[in-house]
Each structure stands twice: as C-alpha cells, then as structure tokens.
C-alpha cells in the first residue's frame, strides 16, 4: 500500500493518544477476519473503528454515562444473536450497545448490527457504517456472519420501534420473526437485551400529516429547537443483558417460530419493567 501522508500519520497518533493504551489494546484483542489491507469481508476495519471510538467513547462515558448489567451473559466467542428493544428516534441505542460489548467484557467483540436497506443510498453513512462493522440486514448476511461465529445485534421491532412516539415509551411494538428463524437455522443462542434511557433522548410526537406528505413512515417532532430530533438529550443509558436462551426446532414451522418470538418478547418486556423499577432518575 502507498505510505500514508503526513496528515494521516498525525491523525493516527492523535487518535491513539486520545484513546489511550487500554482501548488500543482492546482493538488488538479484537478478533476480526481481516485481509492484508485490514478489511474483513463486510468492509469492517479496525482502523476506522478506532477513529469512530474517539467520539463514540465520549458519548458512552460522558454523555449517556452508560451503565451495563449482566454483560457476562454475552458469550466471549462463538455465534450469538443479541436481541434488543429499539427506541429514541436516533439509533444511539445501537451505537451504545456496540461500545458496551467493545468496552465492558474481558474479551472485546465487534457487534454486527443490521441496517435498514435504504442506508446504502445515504452518502457517507453508506460506507462509514460498513467500516464500523454494521451490515445491511438481509437474512443471508446475518446467516453468513452467524456461521462465521460472529455476534449479530437485531432489533426485531425495526423502524416501528425507533419511530414510536413518546406516549408509547417502553411498550414493545410488533416483533419481526426473522431473528428466530436465524436462531433456529444456526443454533445460535439468543441473548435478550433491554435498553433503558434511549426513549428519553428524544421525546417526540409523530406529525403524521407531514409524514404522509413526505411518504416517510414517521415524522418525529420534539418540543425544543430545532424541533426535529438531531441532537439527543443526555439521558442516562442503562443496559441489561439477560441470560442466553437456546431454541431448537424447525425454522419453517411458523407457529413454533411465533411462539418462540413471543417468549423472547415477553422476556425483554419483563427486563424493561425491572429496569424501569430500579431507575429513580431519568437523567442521572
């Protein structure tokens, strides 16, 4: 490869100094299937991750002040499906989960979260998210990663969950069934996860006339400038990882799949309720 320019070398040093030795060691401990140029088959690179970790680490520690419970439930290696509730208009819950699994356990892992299929159309997000290990959420991509013994984060509520108005906070919307088919096909354990605090980062109502006009699934409006959720409020994040659940059965049996999905949803809902009971203040 061509040697890096002066500016890039300087940036690298700056990033390394900002992150500190601990985190740089975590990057070295990351198990990534990368080639001689440092890219894995899905375009993830440790170097890009380290750049992102500067800002994401600050958000994790200082802005959302994340609190993690039960991260020993996430297996240190081997295939695993992480299933969580999705909320808060902006996908910071995914980012904070990625950081939690990178910073908290003894063995850091790359979390592969699934992206909506319009993301590759968005300039910069299209390639930056893939450099950070995120994947377009096709069943084939998830299957491939699970068979490569990776950790995949799924939000079965998808856009329904993240776009729901503040009045329905912490109420799970309909769960998709794709994740359960994946779990049955690959035998990957399902780790249920509850994220508390993301709902309060953007208390929004859905201005549905505008949404309908734009043809978008929702148009969130928040009661403070700039009235559209761009910058999240600094709510405190609390993340709970539940004990892994293993499912066996036929992935093409829709009734069994639906029952298993309901069980996981129930599990996450009860974890959310417990988390809400333990929480005394929203912002600290």
């Amino acid at each position: 490869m061509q040697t890096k320019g002066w500016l890039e070398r300087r940036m690298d040093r700056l990033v390394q100094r900002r992150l500190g030795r601990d985190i740089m060691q975590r990057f070295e401990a990351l198990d990534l299937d990368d080639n001689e140029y440092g890219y894995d088959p899905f375009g993830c690179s440790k170097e890009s991750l380290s750049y992102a970790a500067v800002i994401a680490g600050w958000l994790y520690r200082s802005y959302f002040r994340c609190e993690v419970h039960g991260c020993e439930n996430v297996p240190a290696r081997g295939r695993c499906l992480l299933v969580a509730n999705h909320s808060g208009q902006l996908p910071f819950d995914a980012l904070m989960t990625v950081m939690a699994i990178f910073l908290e356990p003894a063995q850091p892992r790359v979390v592969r979260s699934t992206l909506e299929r319009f993301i590759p159309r968005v300039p910069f997000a299209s390639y930056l998210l893939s450099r950070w290990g995120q994947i377009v959420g096709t069943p084939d991509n998830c299957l491939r990663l699970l068979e490569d013994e990776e950790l995949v984060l799924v939000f079965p509520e998808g856009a329904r969950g993240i776009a729901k108005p503040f009045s329905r906070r912490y109420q799970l919307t309909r769960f998709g069934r794709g994740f359960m088919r994946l779990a049955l096909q690959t035998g990957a354990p399902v780790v249920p996860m509850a994220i508390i605090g993301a709902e309060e980062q953007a208390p929004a109502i859905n201005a549905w006339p505008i949404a309908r006009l734009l043809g978008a699934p929702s148009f969130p409006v928040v009661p403070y400038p700039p009235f559209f959720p761009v910058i999240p409020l600094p709510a405190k994040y609390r993340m709970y990882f539940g004990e892994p659940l293993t499912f066996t059965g036929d992935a093409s049996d829709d009734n069994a799949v639906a029952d298993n999905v309901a069980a996981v949803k129930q599990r996450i809902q009860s974890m959310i309720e417990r988390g809400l009971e333990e929480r005394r203040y929203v912002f600290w």
Partner: protein
Amino acid sequence: MSSGNGSAVEPAARLARSRVVITRANGHMARLVAERLGRLQQYHVVGIGAGRLPDPSAAMEYHQLDSPVDPVGAILRHRDVEAVIDLGAPEAPDRLGDDSRVHDALDTARLLDACVTHSVRKVIVLSSASVYGPRPENTQFLREDAPLRASPAYAWMRDTIDIDAAASSFMQTTTDIAVTILRPVHILGRLRSAASNYLRRPIIPTLLGFDPMMQVIHEQDVAEVIACALSRDTRGIYNVTGPGQIPLSVIIRELGRRRMPIPHLLAGPLWRLAVGRAGKADRSRAGDSMLEADFVRFVCMVDGSRARAELGFQPRFGLRESIRAVD
C-alpha cells in the same frame, strides 16, 4: 472466409488433441485463454473472430469471419469440436463502430444453436458478475440464484446481460450439451474490461460519500478458471471470485492514483460533459459506466464458493498483484 494459421503444432499431434473453439479470438482475453490451454498440451485451440488477429504469434489457429452466412457452423461442421468457449463481452468496445462489436451480429444465441446442430459436447460462456447489478439492498455476497438486476442502459452491460440470458435459457432447454456459465467479478489486467479502463485513468472519478467494497480478479485467473471448467465434467452457473474484497478507495491508493470525488447527483451530467470534451476516440466508454451505472456506489459482490468447490479453482494472484495488473 479467410483462414490464417498461427499455430506451430504438428498436424499429427493436432489430430490427437481435442479441438476447442474460442469466439472473440482477436481480443486480449482469447489470447490469454489460448496460452493457458496451450500449456495443458491436450487442446488444439481454434479461434474465430471478426477482425484481424492483432498478434499472429498467439497459440491458436485463427479464422477471420466477415461473411454473414453461418460461418460458425462451417467451422464446427468440418471439424470434430470438443468444446466451444464463448468469451462474451469481458472486453468493452473502445468506441462505437469498433470491429469487436461484430460479435453481437454473430451473437451467442446463434453460436449455441450451431453447437446443437453439430453436436458439440461442451459449451463455456464467459459472462460477468456485473449482471447482478449494484443495488443498495443487495446482500453482501450474492449466490448464483440471485435475480439479475443490472441496468441495461449501457452498451457494455446490455451485451453482457444479453449473452448471459441467451446462455441461461439455452442451458435450461438443452440436455445434451454441458453448458457452463462463468460470472467473474471485475477483471483487472491489460485487457480493456470496464473496471480496468476505469482504473487506468490518471485521476479516477468517484462518488462523494460512497466507497463500496469490491471484488477483483486477475485476467490470468480468469483464463485459469476457464481451463478448470474445460477439464471438469460440470455444468451450471458459477460465480468466480478472486483473492478477496477491498474498498474502492484502497484499490485507487494501491495504484498510486488520485481520486476525484463528485457529488453523486452531479456525477452523471458532469461526467458526460467531461467525456464529451475528450472526444469520440476516448477509449474508456465502458469505464465510464462504472461510475454512471452505480458500480462505484453500491455493493455488487458475489459468493464464489461454488466455483472453488466444484471447479477446483483457486486464484493464483493475490489482491496486490491483481490490482497492480491494471498498469
């Protein structure tokens, strides 16, 4: 029909070898395939093409076909042909009216019909993985059964899609002939493939905010996989991947070239303006479509594990060597 003989093989030895017919034999890809098959010492390569053979030293017997009266049939009838290799359209035409476009008139469908009539045993068609089309919703690695969604708006793509479609439907209707369709990823090397033309520019236009992962393969590895397909008794569609996948920006950096990111909304008009100014003799028409047809915007990658397992193909060139082959 004129017959030029560029082969140094003895007539007696020629009889013992099985005959293999290559189309588009005046192109660079055909030359590589002929060299590769020549090394195996068991094939006698007969090339047919529309223009003159640029390099008479190529290891094949060459027939220049200018007549429209079933010339392929004439060659297949008089000789006992073991296999026909249709090189499709890996090489993009330099400019409109180029001789290499004559292949479309003598198109793949007619070639395949002639193969039935003259009981050829095996047909190999070189298509391209580009026929799947770069799409935002593409899964990272497309398998052979994925739908073909490439845009037919560009001549080079249209040719490839037509050839692939003709070969696929032929494969479904015939049982006597073992049809193998190869869909290699972007071919890099001295040949004028769309990707190579694109990467040979001194300043490479890219799209601002897009840097998709890409798969590349060395041109000699494509000749290698054709040799694999010829020697194995297989049929079907095979994606052919090279040594791995890498972002476009890293390919450009490896080549030591500069890139010029253009906002994608302006890319089409700006680019056509620039190409228009460059004049009609510009040799990168297909290279332009790399930019215009979104190949440098969305992912269009394939899963080549089937070719590895069933054809026994392993790329011999690494990523670095494959990329450097462009120069």
